[in-house]
């Protein structure tokens, strides 16, 4: 499956839902927020939110800022 994650087009074999994608990328579920096709995915729905070819995903976290 081909996804655009944070602007990068990448192929994923095992990322049928948001929870699986975040885990595949080696990220801590508790420290990120996810947007799928410009819609926020609440953390409680990571498992239930399926992914499809061409989905545009943003995964963000807090960094230093003023």
């Amino acid at each position: 499956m081909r996804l655009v994650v944070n602007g990068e087009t990448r192929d994923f074999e095992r990322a049928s839902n948001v929870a699986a994608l975040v885990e595949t990328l080696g990220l801590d579920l508790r420290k990120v927020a996810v947007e799928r096709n410009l819609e926020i995915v609440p953390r409680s729905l990571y498992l239930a939110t399926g992914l499809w070819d061409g989905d545009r995903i943003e995964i963000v976290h807090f960094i230093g800022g003023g």
Partner: protein
Amino acid sequence: MNAPILGQSGLSQSGLSQSGQGFAAESQDAWTVAGRSFRSRLIVGTGKYKDYATNAAAAEAAGAEVVTVALRRVNLSDPSQPMLADFVKPERFTYLPNTAGCFTGEDAVRTLRLAREAGGWDLVKLEVLSQTRHLYPDMEETLRALKLLVADGFKVMVYCTDDVVYAQKLQDAGAAAIMPAAAPIGSGLGIQNRVNIRLIVEQAGVPVLVDAGVGTASDATMAMELGCDAVLTNTAIAEARDPIRMARAMKHAVIAGREAYLAGRMPKKLYADPSSPLAGLI
């Protein structure tokens, strides 16, 4: 110009008049934004530090309870790189997510909705910039974004120009705090228009914080002497030769300015007035 720069708002909350001792206990002097009370009147940023460990130590030295944070894409090529939350811990500091780098209301709203999901927090700092050279906010767009965010349930602290009229419009639109720039972000030039900051403080029914442009401790003291409820600074600490020491200086500066504001400064006079009595001279 005798009873100089005393607005009315600070005194009533301080417990000063109720103490009966003639002085207020510092512990009574908290400020409240959107229903949350803080004792520290210094909010520090978390950008520009050489590493997150220095950042955390500076926030501690500043005595800060609130830190601003930015929201950005995670680095997919290196998910194991250090994370802010591992050093500046959200259990210890209240995160105030910002919209730095946003140039439209829609960008700002999108960013803060993601921040709310990442941190579960509705108290946010709105900044909608106009251009990169001076980083002054686009006030028309800021006001529009504020209305969108308020409608979405956010409690919004608004970075703004020191425009007295716009400050009132922000308050009327439901801003939780007004945060005028003292000078351009990261410039360290200090308060450029004391008159406007004081007028904004006097008319405001919500907290006023000087945000941006503080360069050194005396700038923070001046903001507090003008009656601001708190000061937000980042670069002045992060880019000091010794950030930890400057953080400590800022902590004392804000306390000194607040105390001086509550104490009420002496009137300025044109001529000398001897401190030692002239009577009884030999």
